[in-house]
């Protein structure tokens, strides 16, 4: 017959079982917190990856990989650290996807009758995104968003990251610096330069 339930468990439960039950409750709490965090960032992360990669499936793969990596390697870290860690992992995934794409297009470029691909226009590490707006965006008819995406695509990778994380994702300078693995001063510099370029490109059309 089970003993009386207390606020934190059963009064007559052996200490080992009590500790194990407590651990399960902690684990459950962490899982709930992790689920809430991921639910809050998944769509925005997907759009960020989609803007950078111009491909829905690649963007989904990158976001899924980032979620798994965060859960597996950093799920035990304090939840306050998750945003910076998650977006750092996400951008690493984007960079890896662009590398793979770059290698693939080089290989196809060597084959007779195949073209190298439009996005192979330089070092993928220097340029997060390349190419024009994808068909899905055109169908949505959102010209302003397409212009923003095009303008962002022309920015160097670090400036683009700084603008996306600071402005679109709403992270503060310290979080952005942690996500970009650089100093806060660098974030400010990249963000300022990104704003300068976007101001030039967009002020006529917005």
């Amino acid at each position, binding site marked *: 017959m089970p003993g009386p339930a207390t606020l934190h468990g059963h009064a007559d439960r052996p200490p080992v079982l009590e500790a*194990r039950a407590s651990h399960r409750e902690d684990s459950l709490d962490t899982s709930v917190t992790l689920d809430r965090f991921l*639910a809050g960032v998944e769509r925005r992360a*997907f759009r960020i990856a989609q803007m950078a990669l111009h491909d829905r499936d690649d963007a*989904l793969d990158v976001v899924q990989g980032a979620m798994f990596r965060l*859960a597996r390697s950093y*799920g035990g870290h304090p939840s306050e650290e998750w945003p910076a860690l998650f977006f750092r992992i996400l951008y690493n995934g984007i960079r890896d996807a662009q590398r793979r794409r770059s290698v693939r297009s080089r290989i196809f470029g060597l084959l007779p009758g195949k073209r190298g691909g439009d996005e192979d226009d330089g070092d993928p590490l220097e340029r997060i995104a390349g190419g024009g707006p994808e068909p899905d965006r055109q169908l*949505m008819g959102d010209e302003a968003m397409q212009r923003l995406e095009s303008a962002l695509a022309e920015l160097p990778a670090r400036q683009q990251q700084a*603008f996306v994380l600071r402005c679109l994702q709403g992270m503060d300078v310290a979080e952005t610096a942690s996500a970009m693995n650089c100093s806060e001063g660098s974030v400010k510099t990249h963000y300022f330069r990104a704003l300068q370029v976007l101001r030039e490109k967009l002020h006529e059309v*917005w």
Partner: protein
Amino acid sequence: MNDRRDHAHDEALERRARELFDSSVDALDAQTRSSLSRARRAAVAEHESRRRSAWQWWVPAAVAASVALVAVLVWRSPVDTPPALVQSGPGDTVDALELVVAGDDLDLVSEELAFYEWLDVVAPEEMAGQGSTT
């Protein structure tokens, strides 16, 4: 003047960019949302399974280590204890301890503080006597 105008324009640009981005996030299709939810649930399940397996590995390891530690302490304690007592003082200490722990004197020890005073006086004298006879 230009700086102020640029700053105002930057704020408007930031606000507009945020609005557009938020709208594009809200406009995601159901299939993409569903795929993201599935990916999230799989990631959380992975987190739970890893935590559970880590716990299941640590408990037997901790129990085994505790048992081993207790076994070592029990095994070593009879050997270690007597030398520690002998080393702690002169030979009268052992005699005095025997008097204290002898079953007959337990009541006396517990009731009579005077016994301890007596022991303090007697023990050195006995030691001196033993020294003179030898």
